[in-house]
């Protein structure tokens, strides 16, 4: 027995320790040789467009640079786990990738953590850089005003609705809601007139990660008179009425069972299910979602013939219809050079190939991105590829960007907690907002917040 005890304790220590050991920063000399470029990126069942662009770019790069190899390391995970895995890879030089597919909201944070290399020198020698618009250039900036990534495209968010279901429920098929109440009353009508159909999806679960913060909560909050972060004072906002109203919206749709059942809403795969199952099968009437959705319906495994006849788009209205009438959020992803890349110029050369005019065009069309290269945005092939481009590009004037501070990703986690706790009914909007405020102060400190 005396022997069993420390051994058993050790087993617990080890099983817990494994998690922690992953965080240790290793100091080994690195695995890849300088002639191999490793590229870390995300691939899921519904997101294969990047995979195909990078494969094309890899073969083009290898053909143009004899002796060089590109090793594509696809991380098969939903967004939240992708960030975690990437952060863990980046913590040790022996596993850190050379080229990284990076979300724009993580750039500042990862640059501050020393995971990314500044690429200003390389950009200065790249004639294509002048083709990128200013917003795209902004997206790659770190706290130190150096550039840490090249934008692949941007996106906007709005309401998708199923015209067939709307017709069946006696609602207009050219729907233009003016306020949140218009959205809710349409959802209520659908619940009554089209039983069996889920009226509306607004992402609410922790497991959905950033989708809950951005496609869900922030699409509501930025349509109120409150905001998340005051740019002029550089302080985070606590106790704002808009924050509570946004949570009340969740309380309404989940309380009245207008939203998907919790087993779907809180599942990590809810994003894939909305895009590839619920909308195409006519099981969901309204979805608050991102401009990239139609990309997968046009071509590939999840192709959906005739989607453009079924799906309509409407801008997400502001809370009470206040100016400018509608709201959208924009993000987008970049390709960055890892700070531990052995040959940073080679890594950047690969990015140059991956985001040249042809490959940007391929990616922006197939993944329905809003193009950030001027030569792509004005290309006839781009403009005629997807009937939804015109609509989603028209949202750019009223779009918002997330507060790009190094703390944002942690704060976003707290937003998801608030949304989920209201959706499950375990907190009232007031309680959830209070818990968020406390968490926020814990993260940024009392001197970085202000009342709303």
């Amino acid at each position, binding site marked *: 027995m005396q022997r*069993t005890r420390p051994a058993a304790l050790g087993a617990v220590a080890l099983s817990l320790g494994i*998690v922690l050991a992953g965080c240790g920063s290793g100091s080994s000399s690195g695995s890849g040789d300088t002639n191999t470029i490793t590229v870390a990126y995300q691939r899921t069942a519904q997101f294969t467009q990047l995979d195909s662009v990078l494969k094309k770019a890899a073969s083009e790069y290898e053909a143009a640079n004899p002796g060089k190899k590109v090793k594509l390391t696809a991380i098969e995970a939903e967004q939240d786990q992708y960030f975690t895995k990437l952060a863990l890879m980046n913590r040790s030089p022996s596993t850190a990738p050379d080229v990284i597919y990076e979300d724009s909201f993580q750039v500042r944070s990862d640059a501050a953590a020393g995971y990314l290399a500044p690429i200003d020198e390389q950009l200065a020698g790249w004639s294509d850089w002048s083709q990128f618009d200013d917003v795209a250039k902004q997206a790659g900036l770190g706290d130190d005003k150096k550039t840490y990534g090249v934008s692949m495209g941007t996106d906007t968010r709005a309401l998708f609705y199923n015209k067939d279901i709307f017709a069946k429920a006696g609602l207009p098929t050219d729907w233009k809601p003016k306020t949140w109440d218009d959205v809710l009353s349409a959802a209520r009508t659908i619940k009554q007139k089209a039983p069996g159909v889920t009226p509306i999806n607004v992402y609410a679960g922790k497991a959905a990660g950033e989708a809950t913060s951005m496609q869900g909560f922030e699409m509501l909050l930025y349509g109120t008179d409150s905001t998340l972060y005051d740019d002029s004072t550089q302080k985070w906002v606590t106790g704002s009425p808009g924050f509570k109203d946004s949570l009340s919206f969740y309380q309404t749709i989940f309380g009245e069972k207008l939203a998907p059942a*919790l087993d779907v809403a809180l599942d990590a795969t809810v994003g894939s299910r909305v895009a590839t199952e619920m909308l195409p099968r006519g099981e969901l009437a309204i979805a608050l979602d991102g401009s990239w959705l139609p990309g997968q319906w046009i071509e590939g495994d999840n192709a959906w013939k005739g989607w453009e006849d079924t799906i309509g788009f409407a801008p997400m209205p502001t809370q009470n219809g206040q100016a400018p009438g509608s709201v959208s959020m924009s993000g987008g992803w970049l390709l960055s050079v890892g700070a531990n890349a052995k040959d940073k110029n080679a890594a950047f050369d690969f990015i140059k190939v991956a985001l040249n005019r042809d490959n940007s065009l391929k990616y922006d069309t197939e993944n329905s991105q809003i193009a950030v290269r001027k030569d792509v945005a004005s290309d006839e092939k781009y403009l005629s590829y997807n009937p939804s481009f015109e609509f989603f590009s028209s949202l750019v004037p009223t779009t918002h960007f997330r507060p790009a501070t190094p703390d944002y990703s942690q704060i976003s*986690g707290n937003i998801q907690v608030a949304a989920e706790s209201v959706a499950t009914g375990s907190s009232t909007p007031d309680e959830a907002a209070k818990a968020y405020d406390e968490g926020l102060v814990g993260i940024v400190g009392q001197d970085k917040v202000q009342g709303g």
Partner: protein
Amino acid sequence: MGIFLVGPIGYALYGSLTNAALSGYRAVAPEFVGFDNYTQLFTSSQFWESVWLTLVFVVGSALIGQNVLGMALALLVRNGPKRLGPVVSSLVVTAWVLPEIVAAFTLYAFFATDGTLNEMLGWVGLDGPTWLITVPLLTVVLANVWRGTAFSMMVYSAALAEVPPDLTEAAEIDGAGWWQRFIRITLPMVRRAIATNMMLTTLQTLGVFTLIWVMTGGGPGTQSSTLPILAFQQAFKFAQVGYGTAIATVTLLVGALFAVVYVKVLKPEVDS
């Protein structure tokens, strides 16, 4: 051996005294913050809720579920009909043989809203609830019982085989019924095995992560967030590695506490 054991614990202890993060400035240069993480932890209602959930999970699935069911199965295999024994034990051991992740997926498929259980309830005309959402803790407790009982059964089978038959026979002649023989003779004889088994299953259950993570993800909300899930969420979801490490360290201490209690209460070394 010492390095393997003490190394990770020491490193975890140090990590829990810093504000290390997964990204941002504090990823590259974590600061030493003393016991701040622990102060924050012990004043957090979420932590205490998690401690309570962990206790319910451990007591329900390990102490009661696995131990009692394991003992019952061991008795059944030993004293029940001859043919039944091998069938029951091979069925139970199958669950034990499955890797944790496979078992977790199996049970997720079983309890999911359109899963096996509700399908079977449908055959008899019942409309099953959304198990993983309405009773998340109960489903993970049942899952852990299903998966872990084989271990207890095997330990108790071995222990029961060591009980000298002449003792129970003597008691039987003295007029002791089945229950009395079990309470007065068998249980005291296998006390050491019980103590060891309780400790092993407790420590094993304290560390269960995959099963819960796959089945409920600790949710809905935090309704099935035991300490290991909370530690993972804080370290990787909220990027607070230092804080997460503090939770892991506390879990370790809880395990040590259980071990000490067992050793004191059941005094397995003294056999008199």
